[in-house]
C-alpha cells in the first residue's frame, strides 16, 4: 500500500476514526470530571546544624547526614501521632487516624545543595491538607526545640563538671601562692620580674586561645574534606566552593600556627629569663603565672556556661519554617494536561486501529481499478449515484437528459457500440453478481438511450423469478414471456408499448416452476431469433448470476452480455467468484458497468481513472 492509499483509507473512514477519537477524549473527560481531585500542600523548612555543635564552637562533621536524619525523623510515628492529636484528625467512625498511614504519606524532599527541605502531603481536602502540612512543620520544629533543650541541658551539665575540676586547680594554685606569700614575709619583687610574669601570663593564655582556634579550624577542614570526597562523584557545584573554603582555612591555619610558634618561642625566652632570677623570685613568678593561667581557663568555662544557659532559656530550635504551606489552588491529580494528552494519544491509536481492522475485514471495493484487477474485463461505463432514484417509474435519462448521469449512459451506449467491432450486438443481457446492483435501472436507461438514436428497442424481462421490468413502465404482467413459451398466447400479443417511441417491453409473465428449463428450451432460442429480426436491439434483464443458472444459460444465447457492478454493494469475494466462474465458461462478457459511484471524490479512486464532477447531477451544464 502506498501512502496515498492510507490517506484515502482514512478519508473514507473518517467518521469511524473521528468517532473513536472523540469517544476516547470523551471517556477521558468523563473520568476527569468524576475523578476525586487530590491536592498537595508544601512547606519549606531550613535546618541549620545541630545545637551542640554550634554551642561548642565546633563545625559538624557531616551536615548532610544531619539533614538526612532530620528528614527521616519527620516520617516517624511519634511525629505523626502528635499531628493527629494536634489537629484532632478523626475518621467517620470517630477514631483517630492511623499515625502509621499518615507518617507513610508524608513526603520529605531535600532541595539539593541547600539546607532547605520540602515537607508535603496529598489529600482530597485542600483545607485539611494545608493544615496537616503546617501541623507537621510546627510539630517538627517543637520537637526539635525540645531535643535541642535536652542537648543544652546535657552541655550545661558537662560544662559544670569541667568547671568543678578547673575550680580545684585554680584554688590549689591560689593556695600555693598564698602559702608562699605567708612563708615569705616580704618578697622583694623587682619591677622587671613583675613585667616578666605579667608577659608570661598574657602569652600563655593567648596560646591556649590559639590552640583552641587551631583545633576548630582543623576540625572544619577535616569535615569539609570528607564532604568533598563524598560528593566528588556527583560533581556538585558547591564542591568548588568547599575547596575554596579549605584553601582559606589552610591559609588561616598557617597564620595561626606561625603565631603559636612565635608565642611558644617568646614563652620559652621569658621562662629562660625567669629561670635566671633568684630562686625566690623564680618560684613567685611561677606561682603567679600558674594561678593566672588556671584563672583564665576557669573564666572561659564560666562564659560558655552562661552562653549555654541563655540558649537553653531561649529554647532555640535548629529547624525553622521558611515557608508555611498555603492552600493549593488547583489539584495535582488528575493532571488535566496529562489526561488530555493521554486521551488524544489513545484516541489516535484507537481510531487508527479501528480503521485498519475495518479495512482488513471489509470486503467492499476500494477503487474502480480493483474491479478491473479482479475481473480483467473491459470497463464500459461508470454511472454515478443517483440520490433521487426512489420512484420505480423514474428514468433519469428521460427526466434529466442533461445530467452527468444521463451523459454516463450515453457514454455506455457508445462504448458498447464500439466494443463489439466484429459483430453487431442485437441481443444483450444485463446481469449482475448479486441482486440489487441496479440491473433493471441500468438496462432501462440504456434501452431509452438506445431508442433515442432511432433504434427499435425491446426490453425483455427474463428474470422469471423476480420480474420487475414491467413496474418501471407501469405495465401489467398478467401475460408475458412465459405465456408465449408455454404456447398459450402469440408473441405479437404480449409485446407492450411503453409510451416512449421505439421502446417496447416484453414482460416476464406468470412465474413458472422451472425457469431455467424454459430459458434453455429451443422455443426460447427461436423466439429470440425472431425478435432480433423485428427489433434493432433486444435487451434482456436476467436474474443475478450467482443466484441461479438462468443467467449463464442466457449468455450462450445472446450476442453479448454486460455485468452491472454496484461499487457500494459488491464484495471483492463475490466479484472474484463470478470472475472465476466466467473464466471457466470461456465466454467473456463485453465488459462491466460501475453503478452507484458516489460523487464524493474520496470514496473511490482509481490510479488511472478519477471521476469528478463540477456540478450537481441535476444542474444545467454549461456547454
Amino acid at each position, binding site marked *: 500500500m502506498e501512502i496515498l492509499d492510507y490517506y484515502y483509507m482514512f478519508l473514507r473512514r473518517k467518521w469511524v476514526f473521528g468517532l473513536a477519537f472523540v469517544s476516547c477524549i470523551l471517556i477521558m473527560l468523563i473520568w476527569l470530571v468524576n475523578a476525586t481531585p487530590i491536592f498537595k500542600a508544601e512547606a519549606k523548612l531550613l535546618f541549620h546544624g545541630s545545637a551542640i555543635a554550634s554551642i561548642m564552637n565546633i563545625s559538624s562533621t557531616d551536615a548532610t547526614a544531619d539533614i538526612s536524619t532530620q528528614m527521616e525523623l519527620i516520617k516517624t510515628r511519634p511525629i505523626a501521632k502528635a499531628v493527629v492529636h494536634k489537629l484532632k484528625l478523626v475518621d467517620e467512625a470517630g477514631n483517630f487516624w492511623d499515625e502509621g498511614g499518615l507518617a507513610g504519606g508524608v513526603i520529605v524532599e531535600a532541595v539539593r545543595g541547600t539546607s532547605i527541605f520540602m515537607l508535603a502531603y496529598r489529600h482530597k481536602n485542600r483545607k485539611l491538607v494545608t493544615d496537616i502540612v503546617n501541623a507537621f512543620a510546627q510539630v517538627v520544629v517543637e520537637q526539635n526545640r525540645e531535643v535541642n533543650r535536652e542537648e543544652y541541658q546535657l552541655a550545661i551539665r558537662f560544662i559544670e563538671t569541667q568547671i568543678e575540676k578547673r575550680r580545684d586547680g585554680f584554688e590549689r594554685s591560689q593556695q600555693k601562692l598564698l602559702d608562699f606569700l605567708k612563708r615569705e614575709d616580704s618578697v622583694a619583687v623587682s619591677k622587671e620580674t613583675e613585667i616578666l610574669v605579667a608577659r608570661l601570663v598574657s602569652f600563655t593564655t593567648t596560646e591556649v586561645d590559639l590552640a583552641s582556634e587551631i583545633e576548630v579550624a582543623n576540625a572544619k577542614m577535616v569535615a569539609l574534606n570528607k564532604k568533598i570526597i563524598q560528593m566528588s562523584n556527583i560533581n556538585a557545584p558547591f564542591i568548588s566552593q568547599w575547596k575554596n573554603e579549605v584553601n582559606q582555612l589552610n591559609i588561616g591555619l598557617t597564620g595561626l600556627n606561625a603565631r603559636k610558634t612565635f608565642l611558644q618561642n617568646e614563652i620559652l625566652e621569658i621562662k629562660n629569663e625567669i629561670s635566671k632570677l633568684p630562686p625566690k623570685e623564680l618560684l613567685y613568678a611561677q606561682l603567679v603565672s600558674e594561678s593566672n593561667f588556671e584563672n583564665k581557663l576557669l573564666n572561659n568555662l564560666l562564659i560558655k556556661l552562661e552562653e549555654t544557659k541563655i540558649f537553653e532559656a531561649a529554647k532555640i530550635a535548629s529547624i525553622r519554617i521558611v515557608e508555611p504551606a498555603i492552600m493549593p489552588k488547583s489539584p495535582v491529580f488528575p493532571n488535566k494536561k496529562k489526561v488530555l494528552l493521554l486521551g488524544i494519544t489513545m484516541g489516535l491509536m484507537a481510531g487508527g486501529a479501528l480503521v485498519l481492522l475495518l479495512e482488513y475485514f471489509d470486503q467492499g471495493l476500494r477503487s474502480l481499478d480493483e474491479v478491473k484487477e479482479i475481473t480483467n474485463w473491459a470497463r464500459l461505463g461508470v454511472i454515478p449515484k443517483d440520490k433521487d432514484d426512489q420512484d420505480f417509474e423514474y428514468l433519469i435519462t428521460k427526466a434529466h437528459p442533461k445530467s452527468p448521469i444521463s*451523459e454516463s449512459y450515453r457514454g455506455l451506449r*457508445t462504448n458498447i*457500440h*464500439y466494443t463489439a467491432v466484429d459483430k453487431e450486438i442485437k441481443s444483450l443481457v444485463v446481469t449482475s453478481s448479486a441482486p440489487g446492483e441496479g440491473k433493471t435501472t441500468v438496462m432501462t436507461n440504456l434501452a431509452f438511450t438506445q431508442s433515442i438514436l432511432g433504434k427499435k428497442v425491446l426490453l425483455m424481462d427474463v428474470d422469471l423469478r423476480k420480474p420487475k421490468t414491467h413496474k418501471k413502465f407501469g405495465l401489467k404482467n398478467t401475460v408475458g414471456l412465459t405465456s408465449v413459451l408455454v404456447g398459450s398466447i402469440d408473441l405479437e400479443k404480449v409485446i407492450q408499448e411503453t409510451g416512449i417511441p421505439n421502446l417496447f417491453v416484453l414482460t416476464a409473465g406468470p412465474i413458472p416452476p422451472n425457469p431455467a428449463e424454459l430459458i434453455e428450451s429451443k422455443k426460447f432460442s427461436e423466439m429470440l431469433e425472431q425478435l432480433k429480426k423485428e427489433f434493432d436491439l433486444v435487451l434482456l434483464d436476467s436474474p443475478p448470476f450467482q443466484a441461479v443458472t438462468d443467467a449463464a444459460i442466457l449468455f450462450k444465447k445472446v450476442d453479448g452480455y454486460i455485468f452491472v457492478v454496484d461499487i457500494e454493494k459488491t464484495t471483492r469475494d463475490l466479484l472474484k467468484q463470478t470472475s472465476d466462474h466466467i473464466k471457466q465458461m470461456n465466454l467473456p462478457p463485453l465488459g462491466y458497468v460501475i453503478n452507484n459511484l458516489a460523487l464524493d471524490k474520496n470514496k473511490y479512486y482509481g490510479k488511472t*481513472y478519477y471521476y469528478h464532477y463540477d456540478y450537481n447531477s441535476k444542474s444545467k451544464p*454549461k456547454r
Partner: protein
Amino acid sequence: MIDIHSHILYGIDDGAEAIGDSVKMAVIYEVLGFKKVYCSPHVMNFYYENDLNKVVQRCAELQEVLNKEKIELELIPFAEVYLDESVPAKVAQKKLPVINGKLLVEGPLNEWPPYLEEILFAIKIYNVCPIIAHIERNRDLQKNLAKIRQLKEGGCLIQGNILSITGYYGASAKRCFEELLKADLYDFLATDMHNAENNVAMYREAMDKAKKLVGEQVKALFKEV
C-alpha cells in the same frame, strides 16, 4: 473578427431562448467588433435534434431580423456536434453543416473515452476535418497536453473558448488554455456565447488577458473556418 462557435440561434438548444436574446447577443458581437458569426447550435440525438436544414432555416430567420434592426453581422449556419456512434452515419449522409470540409464537434466534458478516437476516425474517413470545441474544458485532456498534440497530428483542429482565460470554466481550464495559447496550439478561438449574460466587459477582459499573454496576434485566431 469572426466567431466560429456561437449559440446565438434562439430556441433550438441551451443558447438564446427567444429572438430577443439573439438580438442582444448580436449587439454584443457588433460592439466587440465581430463581422461574421458561425451559428453553431448543439446537435445531440433526442435532446437537440438539429440538422443542416433546421439550422439553415433558423439562421436565415435571424439574419432577416438583424438586417431589419440594422445590425451588421453576417450569420453562417454551422453546428456543434456531440460525438456519439450516430455521427459518422450523419456525416456520410451529409446531414450536418460542414464548412470548408470542417465540422465543429464536442465530447463529454468529464472524460475522454477511447471510443471518441473511433468516432473521430470515422468522420475523417469522409474527408471531414473535426474541430474539437473548447478542448481545454475536457477533464482528461486538461492534464494531458501530449494527448492534445497527438490529436492535432492525427488531423484534428482545436478550438478554445476565450472566456477560459478568465477562469470562467474553472482553474484547470484556465491553466490548460494558457498553456495551449502560449504553445500556439490553438487553431481557432471563439466565444461559445450562450446568452446575453456573458456581456461585453467579460469578453473585453478576456481579450485583454489573452493579448497580454501572447500579443495582438490573438485576434487572428478568431478567423474563418
